[in-house]
């Protein structure tokens, strides 16, 4: 029984791992959602070259893309980031204790990382829209807000999907790093199980399989979205 499959079943670790996987997915989705908001805002700033703001955005993306994710997560978790506590309180995390707080900081950390990569994807997608489209819309006298809604946004969305797929895959994998500071997600469940049963091989193998399942299923989802958004041409 060197591998310890029986201990995995007996110790109730299967449900712990599934619960962890649910937290991993929730964390990934929440971080990705906030990351996209950051990405669209910063991407638009870079694309439109809003001068003083571009400096801020450049600073943010180069820090996040050049410094290890692990370091960013340690920094956010270990420093006394009272503002995060305040934001959490304002959003109604009353106890501020337990997983609620860890989850909030984890979302802040992963969204900050994810957002930096989304920024580049959004900026690239905006830059890929032919300038003629926007000029033509202006020439027709379409108001700016509507140009954005009808011309820029739909094209940007379509061009950005493959890039966003990459960002999502990175984001879901980055959530594993949060385990080192104690959020009970998938990796942490495997980590605790490995330590307490002394069967690390089987626990990390199971974790790897679950992550692989998550990434493969979401890859399929993105392929479907990509097909859905492909421009329909008349035959």
């Amino acid at each position, binding site marked *: 029984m060197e591998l310890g499959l029986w201990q995995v079943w007996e110790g109730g670790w299967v449900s712990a791992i599934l619960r962890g996987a649910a937290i991993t997915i929730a964390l990934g989705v929440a971080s990705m959602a906030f990351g996209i908001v950051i990405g669209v805002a910063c991407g638009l700033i870079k694309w439109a070259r809003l001068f003083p703001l571009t400096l801020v955005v450049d600073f943010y993306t180069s820090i996040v893309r050049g410094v290890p994710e692990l370091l960013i997560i340690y920094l956010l978790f270990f420093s006394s980031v009272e503002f995060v506590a305040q934001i959490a309180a304002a959003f109604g995390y009353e106890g501020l204790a337990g997983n609620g707080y860890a989850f909030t900081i984890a979302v802040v950390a992963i969204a900050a990382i994810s957002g930096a990569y989304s920024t580049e994807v959004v900026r690239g997608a905006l830059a890929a829209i032919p300038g003629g489209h926007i000029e033509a819309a202006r020439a027709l006298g379409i108001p700016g807000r509507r140009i954005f809604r009808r011309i820029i946004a739909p094209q940007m969305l379509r061009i950005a999907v493959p890039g966003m797929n990459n960002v999502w895959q990175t984001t879901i994998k980055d959530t594993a*790093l949060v385990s080192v500071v104690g959020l009970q997600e998938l990796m942490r469940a495997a980590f605790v199980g490995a330590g307490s049963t002394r069967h690390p091989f089987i626990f*990390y193998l199971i974790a790897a399989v679950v992550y692989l399942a998550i990434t493969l299923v979401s890859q399929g989802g993105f392929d479907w979205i990509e097909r859905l958004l492909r421009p329909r041409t008349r035959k």
Partner: protein
Amino acid sequence: MDFELVRLAVPTLAKGLWLTAVLTVASIAIGFNLGLALAVMRLSKNRALSGFAKGYSTVFRGTPLLVQLFLFYYGLGQLSFVRDNPVLWWIVGDGAHCAVMALALNTAAYTSEILRGGLMSIPGGLVEAAQACGMSRLLCFRRITFPLAIRQALPAYGNELVLVVKGTSLASTITVLEITGHAKRLMSQTYAILEIFAIAGVLYLLINLVLITLVRLLEARLTRYLPR
């Protein structure tokens, strides 16, 4: 900022800088060659070879590096046949060696995808022309295919190198004292979290800056035939 603290932290973190650099170079050297082999296998007509390369790339790109690292370090370390084999134990038994293995296997998967893109971009006519000139397949690969593919793939590969540098920070979770490992130890001694992690972050930015500059120089050299 506290100058006493900076005086304490900078030399310690600089010690870690050396190990981070060693981990990076070793992982890249192994990972690049493995990645090249995988890319060639992926494009081969042999279904078994290309299937293996595809599966490898899917598994290593579909799971977090941290899981791979723990699976190798703690998981393989648990198995008695690994412990009893001196060669395997040389790799798995030491945190730094194990980190290099995990990083190399991981970056090989990404490298293979990047190089595959480069190899596929080469017009078939070039290879046919080389064969018509009587070049052997190996010579053709060395003189024609590979140099063109690497030129094509270099910008994307530069990004991957930065990811490897960032990946070395995970070695700190298996007791390796590189920059992040030292930073964490200093943090638990002094609790000066912001200052220490800021210095560590600057060191990483410096490494990446050097690396990106080198890649840009290489890129300029490889494309010097282009008009500018």
